C-alpha cells in the first residue's frame, strides 16, 4: 500500500547516478553499463506502455541508452539523471509512434506482461483485474498511456512527470486526472455495488 499513500519514490539514487555519469565522462565504460542495468527496466517499461509492442520497446530502449551516451555532455547535473533519461525515452517512443502514423488496432494476441508468469502466487482475482486494466490501457490514447505510465509504472511524481514531458505541474495533474477518469469509464464494472 506504500504506493497508494506515499509519494512515489525516486527510482534511482541521484547521487549515485551522478557519480556514474561522471565516471563515464572520464571514460569508464563500466559506469555506463551500471546505468543501463539500473534503468533498463523502467526505460523499457515506459517504451512498452507507449508503443505497446515488446520488440518496439526493446529497440527504443537500446536507442535511448545510445542517445544518453552520446548526449551526456548535454546533461546538466542540477537535474535528476533519471528525469533526463526518461525525457529522452518518452520523446524517442513518441517519435517512433509518430513515424508509425495512426495507431493500429491492437492485436488480440499481443504479448504484454503476464502477471501469472512472474507472480504465480497472485490471487486469480488480482490477475483478472490486472488483465482487464491492461486491456483498457492498451485501448487508450498514446497521451493518456504516457502520463499514466510515468505515474503508475515509472512511479514519477507530478514534478518529475512535468520535467519529462516539459509541461507545468498543473497540466500534469489535469492530464492525469482526465486520463484516470477515462480509464474509470472503461472499467465501470469495477465500481463497488
Amino acid at each position, binding site marked *: 500500500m506504500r*504506493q*497508494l*499513500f*506515499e*509519494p*512515489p519514490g525516486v527510482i534511482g539514487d541521484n547521487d549515485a547516478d551522478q557519480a556514474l555519469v561522471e565516471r*563515464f*565522462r572520464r*571514460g569508464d*565504460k563500466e559506469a*555506463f*553499463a551500471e546505468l*543501463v*542495468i539500473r534503468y*533498463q527496466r523502467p*526505460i*523499457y*517499461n515506459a517504451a*512498452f506502455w507507449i508503443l505497446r509492442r*515488446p520488440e518496439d*520497446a*526493446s*529497440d*527504443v*530502449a*537500446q*536507442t535511448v*541508452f*545510445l542517445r544518453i*551516451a*552520446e548526449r551526456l*555532455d548535454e546533461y546538466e547535473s542540477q537535474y535528476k539523471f533519471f528525469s533526463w533519461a526518461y525525457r529522452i525515452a518518452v520523446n524517442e517512443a513518441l517519435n*517512433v509512434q509518430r*513515424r508509425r502514423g495512426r495507431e493500429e488496432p491492437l492485436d488480440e494476441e499481443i504479448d*504484454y*506482461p*503476464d*502477471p501469472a508468469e*512472474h*507472480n504465480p502466487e497472485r490471487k486469480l482475482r*488480482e490477475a483478472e*483485474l*490486472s488483465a*482487464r*486494466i491492461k486491456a483498457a490501457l492498451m485501448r487508450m490514447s498514446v497521451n493518456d498511456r504516457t502520463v*499514466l505510465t510515468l*505515474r*503508475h*509504472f515509472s512511479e514519477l*511524481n*507530478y514534478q518529475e512527470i512535468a520535467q519529462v514531458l516539459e509541461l507545468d505541474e498543473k497540466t500534469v*495533474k489535469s492530464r*492525469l*486526472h482526465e486520463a*484516470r477518469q477515462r480509464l*474509470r469509464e472503461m*472499467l465501470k464494472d*469495477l*465500481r*463497488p455495488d
Partner: protein
Amino acid sequence: MNKRELTELMHAVLDGEATASGRRELDGLLSRDPAAKAEFEELKALFDGLAHIPKAYPPEGLVASVMANVNIPQNSPSGGRLDQLFGWSRIIGLRAKESRVKSLGLEQRSLFRGADMSDKIGGSKSKRKILIGAVVVGAAAVTVSLLFDVPPGVDSIGTIVPALRYRADQPTAADVKLGAGGTVTSTVPAKPQSDTSSGSSNGSSNGSANGSANGSANGSANGSANGSANGSANGSANGSANGSSNGSANGSSNGSANGSANGSANGSANGSANGSANGSANGSANGSANGSANGSANGSANGSANGSANGSANGSANGSANGSANGSANGSANGSANGSANGSANGSH
C-alpha cells in the same frame, strides 16, 4: 469544495501528493459523505489495480546489446579504447548493427569514432619505409622492363594470352611501348606490367601489377598486386595484395593482404591480413589477423588474432587472441586469450 475539487483531492491523496492538511480534510469529508466515500473506494481500487500490474521485463540481451554499441566520450582519457572490449565483430557484427539502426529509422552512426584514420600522421620511420618501398618497386619495374620488354615491331597478335579476368584503365601510348599495329587492345600482355607516374598509376594483369605514384596507385591482378604512393595505395588480388602509403593503404585478397601506412592500414583476406601503422591498424581474416600500431591495433579472426600497440590492442578470435600494449590490452577468444599491458589487460575465454 465542489465535486471536481473533491475528486482532484482524492487523486492527489492517492498519488501521495496531497499535503497533511489536505489528507485530513479528505478524511473528514469521507466520514460525512457516503457517496464521496464510495467514489474514493472506486478510485482506490483503480490505483490498486494499476499498482499490481507487473512490470515488463526487458529482453535479456539489452545491456550487452547497448554496451556493444556505446561509445566512450571522445574527450575522455581512454577514448581510444572505443568499441574494443565489447566491440562488434567486423566480420559478422556490422550487418546486424546496420539493420537495427535502419529499422529504427535513425541516421547511420559511425561504427568507430576514434581518431580520423585519413589524417596523415608524420613519422620518419614510415617515410623511410615509403622510400624503401618506392625504390623496391622502381627496381622491380626496371628489372621487369629489361627482362620482359616486348620488342618493337613485333605484332602482338598470337602471343600466349591467359583469360582476361579484369581490365583497368590502360597506360597511354606514351607510357608503354607497344608493338606495331593497332591490335594490342584485343590482347592482354603476357608479361608483368609496371607503371610509374607522378600523378597516378593503375595496373591490371593476370600475372601481376605494380604501381607507384605520388598521387595514388592501384593494382589488381589474379596473381598479385602492389601499390605504393604518398597519397593512397590500394591492391586487390586473388593471390596477394600489398599497399603502403603515407596516407592510407588497403589490401584485400583471397590469399593475403598487407597494408602499412602513416595514417591507417586495413587488410582483409580469407587467408591472412596484416596491418601496421602509426595511426591504427585493423586486420580481419578467416585465417589470422595481425595488427600493430603506435595508436591502436585491432584484430579479429576465426583462427587467431594478435594485436600490439603503444596505445591499445585488442584481439578476438574463435581460436586464440593475444594483445599487448603500453596502454591497455584486451583479448577474448573461444580457445584462449592473453593480454598484457602496462596499463590494463583483460582476457576472457
